[in-house]
């Protein structure tokens, strides 16, 4: 049973059709029409994605790799639009379409009162299309198309509420930081074409071994290893998209966008594109341990240091955003130790539980009338039990309580780092281990502040309902117009449907995904780098692994975090303030986010404008126009003024000039003319 091109085309194009219909024909099909067509489109894609996954795993279909049409053919270079669907792609398709479908449904409830309702559906369907193009690509050009297209949609969605100054600042920032990553990415693609002579994945990967020993001349005396240059450049792209330090600054700000897209784009799918890309490029990355060490150190730094910031956040969405950064760091660490399948495994489990956490946070935000500050929440569990329970499900997966999906994927990564001998693995091991404690701290803190303890809001007894969906913040903080209540089923159903895989999917998939060579030829690991092979010898099934997990260091760290948070936030709320006061300098460092934003803004935004202004004033207006252009005009003016004096109007002046001219002309001919005539 072969995978049919038509099915793949429908998977990719169905969301695009939905996007176009909802975007251009909203006036005719209305709000219900817009959400119906987009949901239908994504549902079709989702069903067919499962079919493709089924065909590949159970049906024994061969992997699909075909070009659809030639994008350009120049000399021997070919760039095509085409699909490559193997198990890695199929898994991404399923994750993306499933989360996207649930987010589409959820949006009906979340965006109900928003004037941009149909536009929002159009955007998220466009995003789904772009993401499909990214993961289904069979070449670097189309990968870059999908890469930038998801960036565009991210830009549009972060700035969805375009009247808010913070939103349109955040979306510009997100686009710019991503462009810095894409700058590296594009150079990486250029290097691939230069060294491997093709943009096609299959050919490039087949030729990859030829990179060994080749170098790129940087300066007269400096040669860099070709594979290292390619991989680091490509990874810079991943650092932008997957928000790795130091290009992580855009992701927290992206929370300006509506919550459904925070779940879909900035947690479950788009930000994992970098992880997917590196996994896809495993035949290249395996050639450079330098590049992989670079990946490892960057990932480890991100995993720990962004997680720390999460501890001091008060905005419910920002806590989850920093958690996302930290978890992306874990995935990157997995890439760095050549455990690509582990990275993709964590990508999958994370997609479920993080989408769940974001959507749950969104449910809380609806109940709180768009209050996002956890200091004005507390005790919400009795108002919204489904949200409360499902968010706990997501949280225990996030902190990796044994048996949850997050446990299997995260503990495998930690163990793999411990096994790895790669340069930087010791540092990374410390980071990912400390990260467990940090994850526990911010997660339990968030859950307690939101759902447990005393209510820190009051319910005003005033009339007239009406909270404005995209115009919150005008009311007094902590005062709600009416009591919070559980969200409608379109919101809670996706929560429940996400909670199930968050808890269970890891148990059933860890065996084949990590130790069963499930990905087959889609992921290539050199035998010397294969940490999973070593771990596989000690893997005796998911049950044994979970039971073993209770005796391990990560679990004890987790337990410590649980006890600390429980004590502080349930039994001794005053404690938090005391700790904050005692650790004021540390708190300030974290609250200021290590001043990275400030430095970037001063250096790149302000600095760029100042540099531009300097060029503009000094060079453009000063030298070029001032001295060269208008200066020479000045010279002409002066010459002309002198010439004007010659035009005296006296006849004898002219007569004299004519005679002089005649002499010169004849004399000149007499001198030069014979020479000319002789030719």
């Amino acid at each position: 049973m072969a995978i049919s091109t038509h099915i793949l085309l429908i998977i990719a194009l169905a969301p695009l059709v939905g996007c176009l219909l909802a975007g251009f024909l909203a006036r005719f099909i209305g709000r219900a029409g817009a959400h119906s067509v987009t949901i239908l489109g994504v549902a079709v894609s989702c069903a067919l994605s499962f079919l493709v996954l089924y065909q590949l795993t159970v049906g024994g279909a061969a992997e699909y790799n075909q070009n659809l049409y030639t994008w350009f053919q120049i000399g021997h270079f070919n760039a095509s639009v085409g699909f490559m669907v193997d198990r890695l792609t199929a898994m991404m398709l399923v994750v993306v379409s499933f989360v996207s479908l649930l987010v589409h449904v959820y949006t009906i409830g979340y965006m109900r009162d928003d004037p941009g309702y149909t536009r929002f559906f159009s955007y998220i369907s466009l995003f789904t299309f772009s993401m499909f193009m990214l993961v289904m690509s069979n070449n670097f050009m189309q990968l870059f198309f999908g890469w930038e297209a998801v960036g565009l949609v991210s830009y549009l969605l972060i700035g969805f509420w375009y009247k808010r100054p913070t939103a349109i600042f955040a979306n510009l920032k997100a686009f710019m930081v991503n462009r810095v990553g894409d700058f590296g990415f594009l150079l990486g693609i250029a290097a691939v074409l230069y060294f491997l002579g093709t943009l096609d994945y299959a050919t490039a990967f087949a030729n990859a071994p030829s990179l060994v020993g080749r170098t790129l001349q940087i300066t007269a005396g400096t040669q860099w290893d070709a594979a290292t240059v390619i991989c680091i450049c490509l990874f810079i792209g991943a650092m932008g998209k997957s928000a790795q330090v130091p290009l992580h600054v855009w992701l927290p700000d992206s929370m300006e966008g509506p919550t459904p897209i925070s779940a879909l784009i900035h947690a479950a799918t788009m930000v994992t594109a970098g992880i997917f890309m590196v996994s896809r490029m495993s035949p290249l990355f395996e050639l450079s341990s330098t590049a992989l060490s670079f990946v490892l150190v960057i990932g480890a730094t991100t995993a720990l240091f962004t997680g720390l910031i999460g501890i001091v956040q008060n905005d419910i969405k920002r806590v989850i955003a920093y958690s996302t950064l930290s978890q992306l760091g874990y995935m990157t660490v997995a890439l760095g130790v050549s455990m690509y399948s582990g990275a993709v495994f964590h990508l999958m489990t994370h997609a479920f539980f993080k989408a769940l956490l974001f959507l749950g946070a969104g449910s809380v935000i609806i109940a709180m009338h768009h209050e996002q500050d956890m200091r004005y929440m507390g005790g919400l569990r009795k108002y919204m039990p489904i949200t409360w329970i499902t968010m706990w499900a997501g949280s225990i997966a996030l902190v990796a309580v044994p048996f949850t999906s997050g446990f299997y994927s995260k503990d495998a990564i930690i163990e793999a780092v411990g096994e790895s001998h790669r340069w930087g693995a010791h540092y990374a091991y410390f980071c990912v281990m400390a990260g467990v404690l940090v994850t526990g701290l911010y997660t339990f803190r968030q859950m307690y502040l939101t759902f447990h303890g005393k209510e820190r809001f009051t319910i005003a007894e005033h009339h007239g309902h009406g909270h404005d969906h995209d115009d919150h913040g005008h009311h007094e903080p902590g005062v709600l117009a009416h009591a919070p209540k559980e969200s409608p089923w379109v919101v809670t159903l996706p929560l429940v449907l996400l909670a199930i895989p968050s808890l269970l999917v890891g148990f059933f998939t860890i065996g084949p995904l990590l130790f069963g060579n499930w990905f087959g030829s889609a992921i290539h690991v050199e035998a010397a780098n294969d940490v999973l092979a070593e771990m596989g010898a000690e893997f005796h099934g998911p049950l044994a692994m979970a039971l073993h997990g209770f005796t391990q260091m990560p679990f004890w760290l987790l337990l410590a975090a649980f006890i600390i948070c429980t004590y502080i936030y349930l039994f001794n709320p005053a404690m938090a303030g005391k700790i904050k006061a005692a650790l004021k300098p540390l708190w300030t460092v974290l609250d200021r986010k290590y001043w990275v934003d400030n430095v970037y803004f001063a250096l790149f935004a302000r600095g760029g404008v100042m540099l531009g202004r300097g060029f503009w004033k000094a060079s453009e207006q000063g030298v070029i126009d001032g001295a060269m252009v208008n200066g020479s005009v000045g010279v002409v003016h002066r010459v002309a003024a002198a010439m004007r004096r010659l035009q005296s109007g006296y006849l004898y002046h002219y007569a004299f000039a004519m005679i002089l001219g005649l002499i010169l002309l004849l004399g000149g001919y007499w001198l030069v003319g014979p020479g000319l005539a002789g030719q």
Partner: protein
Amino acid sequence: MFNHLLSLLIWLPVVGAIPVLFAGSARPNLARWLSMLVAVLTFVASLFLLVRYNADTGGMQLTESYLWIASWGVHYGLAVDGISVALIVMTTFVGILVIAGAWEVIQDKPHLYMAAMLILEGLLIGVFCATDALLFYALFEAILIPMFILIGMWGGPRRVYATLKFFIYTFFGSVFMLIALLYLYQKAGTFDLATLAALPLTFKEQAWIFFAFLIAFAIKVPMVPVHTWLPDAHVEAPTGGSVVLAAVMLKVGTYGMLRFILPIVPDAGAHFAWLIVVLSLIAIVYIGYVALVQEDMKKLVAYSSVAHMGFVTLGIFIAFALVREQGSTDMALLGMQGAMVQMISHGFVSGAMFTCIGVMYDRTHTRQIKDYGGVINVMPWFGFFYVLFAMANCGLPGTSGFVGEFMVILASFAASPWIALFAAFTLIIGAAYTLWLVKRVLWGEITNPHVAEMKEINGRETFVLVAFAAAVLALGIWPQPLIHLMDSSVSQLVQQLAIHKI
């Protein structure tokens, strides 16, 4: 008719301008419809060019040649290759859109405006198919006149300064070209470009001629540091003038390089290619920063034009190094094709950007960025197009703006990773100036009362923007037809690069 298709293309708009003129200011609507008719007919005629031109064989086709000035051996010689065809079709396409764009915007003597546009269009088509150097030169100079009239009559308050700067600047450059042509004439006894291409020249001769040509064409492109006439001209020009200036006229400069520098002085071209490459990179990076701080929307887009044209000159001259030093014909083809695609794409993208600015200017009569903010609130459909063209301007894949830049960056990496590094910087700086502009103009709350009064685009404006959008997207999604059209011609150009004349 097909034997004289090129003549038809040139003379149809020029002669068609005469009845438009006679319609007079008393019957402005007649003038408008007549000129639209002429523009559409010219466009249709140019489509026949696509049919008649055989892209597989390449070379100069549809040749016409008549003795023009017998005593100097000057011919009225016309022919096209794939590059010319692409440029001509782009010109006639844009021709329709500027007529439509000016429709009720130009209230003062519309018949003169439309006639000047048509004549300009005819002359530009002539430039793209002249095979005689003197004919090329005559047309190259002649296009200044209608443009001079367009800016001088319908321009802004500082139009006198701008027109003089524009005229003198470009005229100054072409004097050098004339001298070089006269020198070549006295050596070869003809102005026929094919003969001149075969003419052996010493390196010293080539160097002098190279710089003479370079000055003429670099001003037209324009390249740094002779670019300052462009922002001034754009700011003062009426919308249609800006569109034609950016979309078509700038290409005359790079087209001239292809027809004169590459075949006639290839050795000097190769020797001094580094200079052009450096100037192109300066255009991309330095001009990007200058564009960032512009307060006038038109100036910003004008500077961004200079930066984008940097990719054209980069792609053309990087090919020299790739062919001669690396021996990599495929990479050279990639760079050269990238430059060609960028020429066409920039025609659409910059034309669309200037049209968008014109649409806003017509409503508010200001081009200052600070006078805007929150336009999306009152003009959502306009906002859609504006964002689309802004994305094309910063080279988003899927739009035409990506294709050429992508190809040139890939090719330049083969010449030197450093060149690619600076060229790829456009990803960052291009996005910065374009999207910051979008942020300040389109997004946000309405802060200025006149923005609140802006009306959504009407049917005519929608037509123009949809046409531009269709071109931008079609090229971005499937560039291969355009590339195929130019492929054999570009291959011939690249082969010429390798030929040593000394």
